[in-house]
């Protein structure tokens, strides 16, 4: 399979300025050396808690935020493999490429201009990106609306006349206008109610099948990621700590953070006996990332080595990579413990 997108060692650092002269005193390392590749036609999930850098990464890929370092290779229309280096493109060439990559934002209430009618909201990007006659534009708009399950009747209305789910459909219709082949979905269902969320998830899957789209799905909702994504990467403090095929990650998580994150998700099945909360405290500030492994301050199994050296991503199992010094040892210990005593778990460390 060819890759739609390949990024290597991507960095997004935001300068922190202080004082009268606004001198740079430090940096928020929102994304700190991330590499990943997304196969054409796949859905790639990017998971993490607030402040882990997942939105910064998504924006940097689309060049909405200039990366501080690294390479982003994109497979444009007609190319055989990811070959166009986005960070080096001239503004003009980048603009031409933009029609191939689009984004749907989290909050459909703020992503649509409340003062414009839907027809203007959908017409503007078309006029900016393509040279089409009025009739052709209209045709394209109606086709796009129909693809997301709305009708022409929506055109004359304003965003406030739609419900949250319908607004998200309009935002998706806007993203589809330029016939993109890659769409970043930045928490597209987080603001929606459960019953409507299912409608939008079904729509996204159906559009992907029909149009052969490649998705980067950014989310903190693990149950949705598990359902929708082929591959998943877990981010913590600007780095990917684990990544691989979704089924493999959920069935056999190797990084302590992934394990604790999965255990924290509330499951819609009534509890049979309480589960203990294993992960204590909050993530450290990305302005002040700890030395060594970024997770060592909260990790129940951290050792001296973790405090000193940064673990590299290593491949354990097919396409399953993890950044933990002790992944094998911990997993082996757990399976022994699980076999001997079903109740035992990782020892709880008091919160710092």
């Amino acid at each position, binding site marked *: 399979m060819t890759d739609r997108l390949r990024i290597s060692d991507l960095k997004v650092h935001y300068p922190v300025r202080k004082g009268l002269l606004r001198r740079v005193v430090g940096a928020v390392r929102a994304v700190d050396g991330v590499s990943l590749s997304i196969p054409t036609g796949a859905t790639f999930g990017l998971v993490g*808690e*607030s402040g882990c850098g997942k939105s910064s990464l998504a924006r940097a890929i689309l060049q909405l935020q200039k990366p501080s370092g690294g390479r982003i290779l994109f497979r444009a229309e007609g190319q055989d493999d990811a070959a166009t280096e986005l960070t080096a493109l001239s503004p003009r060439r980048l603009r031409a490429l933009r029609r191939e990559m689009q984004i749907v934002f989290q909050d459909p209430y703020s992503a649509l201009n409340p003062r414009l009618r839907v027809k203007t909201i959908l017409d503007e990007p078309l006029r900016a990106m393509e040279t089409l006659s009025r009739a052709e534009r209209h045709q394209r708009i109606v086709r796009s609306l129909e693809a997301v399950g709305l009708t022409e009747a929506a055109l004359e209305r304003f965003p406030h006349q739609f*419900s*949250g*789910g*319908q607004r998200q459909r309009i935002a998706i219709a806007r993203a589809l206008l330029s016939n993109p082949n890659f769409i970043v979905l930045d928490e597209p269902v987080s603001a929606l*109610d*459960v*019953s*409507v*969320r*299912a*409608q939008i*998830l*079904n729509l996204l*899957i159906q559009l992907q099948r029909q149009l052969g789209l490649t998705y980067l799905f950014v989310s*903190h909702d*693990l*149950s*949705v990621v*598990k*359902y*929708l994504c082929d591959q998943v990467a877990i981010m913590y403090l600007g780095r990917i700590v684990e990544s691989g095929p*979704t*089924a493999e990650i*959920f069935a056999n998580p190797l990084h302590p953070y992934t394990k*604790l*994150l999965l*255990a*924290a*998700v*509330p*499951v*819609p*099945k*009534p*509890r049979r006996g*309480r*589960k203990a*909360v294993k*992960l*204590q405290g*909050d993530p450290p500030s990305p302005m002040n990332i700890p030395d060594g492994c970024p997770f060592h301050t909260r990790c129940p199994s951290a050792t001296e080595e973790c405090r000193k050296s940064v673990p590299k991503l290593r491949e354990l199992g097919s396409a399953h990579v993890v950044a933990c010094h002790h992944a094998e040892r911990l997993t082996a210990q757990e399976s022994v413990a699980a076999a001997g005593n079903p109740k035992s778990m990782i020892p709880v460390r008091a*919160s*710092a």
Partner: protein
Amino acid sequence: MNAPVFQMRNVSIDLDSLKNPSRRIANGIDLELHRGKTLALVGESGCGKSVTALSAMNLLSAPLRISEGSILLETEAGREDIAKLNPSGSQMRSIRGRRIAMIFQDPMTALDPVYTVGDQITESLCQHLGLSRKDAWKRAVELLRLVGIPAPEQRARNYPFQLSGGMRQRVMIAIAIACSPSVLIADEPTTALDVTVQAQILELLRELGEDLGMATLLITHDLGVVAENADEVIVMYRGYVVEKAGVDALFDNPAHPYTQGLMASLPPADGERIELTPIPGQVPAITEDIVGCPFASRCPHVMPKCGETMPALGAISSEQSVACWLYPAAAEARP
């Protein structure tokens, strides 16, 4: 079972308007809270769960008002109907925070940014328990320790912006439990938090509820949170309670078509990519007039009767009742 510490009986809430007739946004809500137990109130945006929570604190203000029903709370003077009290009167103020307390969704907007968290905790201690400033401060530090904040002596002198989201929510909980209320209303207490922090906060609420014998009303839209934390569940739709059940009964055997629809909308736990079954359409707007059952327009089992009258809650088993004509033995028209 013991007598409930808190009871809402047939409570309806109206939204008054100068131009139009009043609209009823909650219809005949009945609920009971018991010591050490958690009742979850579930529903999607606009179903009336937050106004129900506010009415439980008698915190509604114009144009919203409690139009009928009674809200009974155990106090020193015996059972008192707080729906009859003036919401801003001294009697209500002596109850609110002392007997019944609330945790709000967004800890950043619910805490006052210009006072230290210690000051905000001592306020109700001085007001309700008549403690001196010094004693109240000591107690505030103890409370911060109780809710799991490290270095509470220093943290009490912090302002809300100096704390993380999870810590702020812990501070809100400390304020709520400061006077050991018998009833705690938690309105989406973890919606603004990350999943690992959410697990910590929910565990804290569970422990406190059991240790202090508080009755908790947990308002949420997350069925996962319900399953792991509630003893009993009430499902609301467009201002009506449509189903009421023990947590196991609700998840094993959801009875109302709306509850069934919610369960079918969830991605399967095993991650299998079967097509989800969403509920078609959307919740009717609050401005729409509805005759009969409000779910009729989206219901797969709709019958002619549904468009005429809304059934009352009827018991289908000892621990489950449902308001739906599909259960003719249990259903009867609302009075």
